[in-house]
């Protein structure tokens, strides 16, 4: 089975971020960058398919030079190959442009399965996966919480969590999936895995190498103009040391007079 996993390098969500004073982005000095959380689940899903059915796992990222590190992690987890798609024209690309660049890499490799994360924890967009499925002309299932592949029938059965329901879908392969965290528990890279990954070559491709003309990538339809801090929240009233009855009274008064839901 030929499996492609798309991944992105993002700031570690454990750490605070600093917005640049001019609001054009975040200050990356000293920032810990990691593989997007959901992409660890995507990589795990890819590796499990290879373990079940054989084949290869190729990890691909669109990003700057530093995004190699996230690809290195995928290799250390067990991916066979990795490629970084890097081009000045992709700086400031919107999600549809990223999808087009990924598609140019993926199409000639005729995958059976393409796996993305549900969303990236920096952009929080959840756009690249379904957009990529469209450009690749593959059927899709997003935010899947369960994946069973029947290679004989070239079909997958997946579960998606909707609001208040679970949807069971049958999807013919080749297909694109985006994954929810409940799909699996990502493995940690093993020490031999890390050593092996260090020796592996990460292919770097620009638009020309992908066979994409600047016109085909186009210009961004959606542009991030600025970042601002979310409106600060401050502590309100604290009720401490009250009897439960008095605490309840305070909550009731709050719900009716301040929040107006009672």
């Amino acid at each position, binding site marked *: 089975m030929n499996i492609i996993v798309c991944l992105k390098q993002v700031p570690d969500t454990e750490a605070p971020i600093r917005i640049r004073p001019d609001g054009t982005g975040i200050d990356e000095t000293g920032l810990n960058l990691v593989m997007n959380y959901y992409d660890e689940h995507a990589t795990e899903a890819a590796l499990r398919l290879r373990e079940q059915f054989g084949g290869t796992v190729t990890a691909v990222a669109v990003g700057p030079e530093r995004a190699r590190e996230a690809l290195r992690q995928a290799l250390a987890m067990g991916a066979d190959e990795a490629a970084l798609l890097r081009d000045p024209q992709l700086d400031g690309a919107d999600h549809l442009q990223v999808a087009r660049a990924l598609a140019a890499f993926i199409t000639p490799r005729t995958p059976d399965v393409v796996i993305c994360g549900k969303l990236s924890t920096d952009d929080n967009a959840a756009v690249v996966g379904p957009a990529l499925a469209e450009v690749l002309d593959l059927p899709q299932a997003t935010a899947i919480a369960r994946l069973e592949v029947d290679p004989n029938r070239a079909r997958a059965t997946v579960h998606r969590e909707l609001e208040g329901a679970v949807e069971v879908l049958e999807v013919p392969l080749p297909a694109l999936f985006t994954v929810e965290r409940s799909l699996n528990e990502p493995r940690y890279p093993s020490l031999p895995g890390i050593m092996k990954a260090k020796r592996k070559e990460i292919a770097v491709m620009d638009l020309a190498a992908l066979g994409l003309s600047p016109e085909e990538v186009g210009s961004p339809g959606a542009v991030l103009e600025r970042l601002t801090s979310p409106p600060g929240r*401050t*502590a309100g009233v604290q009720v401490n040391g009250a009897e439960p009855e008095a605490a309840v009274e305070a909550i009731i008064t709050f*719900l009716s007079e301040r929040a107006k839901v009672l």
Partner: protein
Amino acid sequence: MAAGAGLSEVWVLVAHEGGAVRKITSELLGKARALAGGGRVVAVLLGAGVPDPARTLGRRGADEVILVDDARLAHYTTEGYAAALAHLAAEGPPALLLIGSTAQGRDLAPRLAARLGAAVVTDCQSLDVADGALVATRPMYTRKAIGTVRLGPGQMWIAVALPAVFPVPAETERTAEVRSAALPAEIRIRTRVVETRAIERETVPLTEAEVIVSGGRGLRGPENFPLLDALARALGAAVGSSRPPVDSGWVPHDYEIGQTGKTVSPQVYIACGISGAPQHLAGMSGSKFIVAINKDPNAPIFQLADLGVVGDLFEILPRLTEAVKRRKAVG
């Protein structure tokens, strides 16, 4: 924006389930009306055998309903919905298509955008038109920042809006005209919906709830979640949780609120036995009011709670439920 200076045409994709139009649809119709000014607001209803929507959708602001009633749309599928909307847009695209941020909406919008060459922005919490561009704000970096995104002129725009941020507009006497449209004979739907299993819930969906009662590790075990259910029933609220109750299997995964769970913005969020980790705040700090019940006076959740109650949730919750019931009984 002054009336008459609005967008010429705004479409709203109707979210419906079991014959009922979901609340997000009304919220989007209200926003569409505001952005259209004197322009046209069109509700697009896709389905099979759906009840006559003209009155309900008209009252919330639709001038017209485009109804595509086709057996192939009986269940939501990405390709069925994308084909229907692409077909309608080919006849005359709107300036803007609004879609609610539901599991279906998030699945559909980017695919449709890629098909139509439209610009797309998701998770919008505000939407305005300025200098011919659509300007949206949206939470980013797990709510540690708010991004302002600009979709320039000369292209169709698709905006996916978060639920519960735009107010439900007051009802009017408007009745929308209904126009039926056909789905092309040849469309390809490769996925098959095997089944949709409802997760039994006694309370309203999290993303639509005005009030959310949420429990954390402080609940100690699944046997105590009925304390939250009882309070939620009394308040007409939904029940959610932080991550540990999900990871421990006390509650289903779709309860989870936060970075790896749902983003909610209810009028009131009542956090019970939740410490207030940044990853939890990522999902709920957009709530209008936050009430926290925690026995640790130094719990970080108190730094953003509008009302913080230091106490034992096992003593407070049952009494609170009774007090709410008494209050409701009085009127």
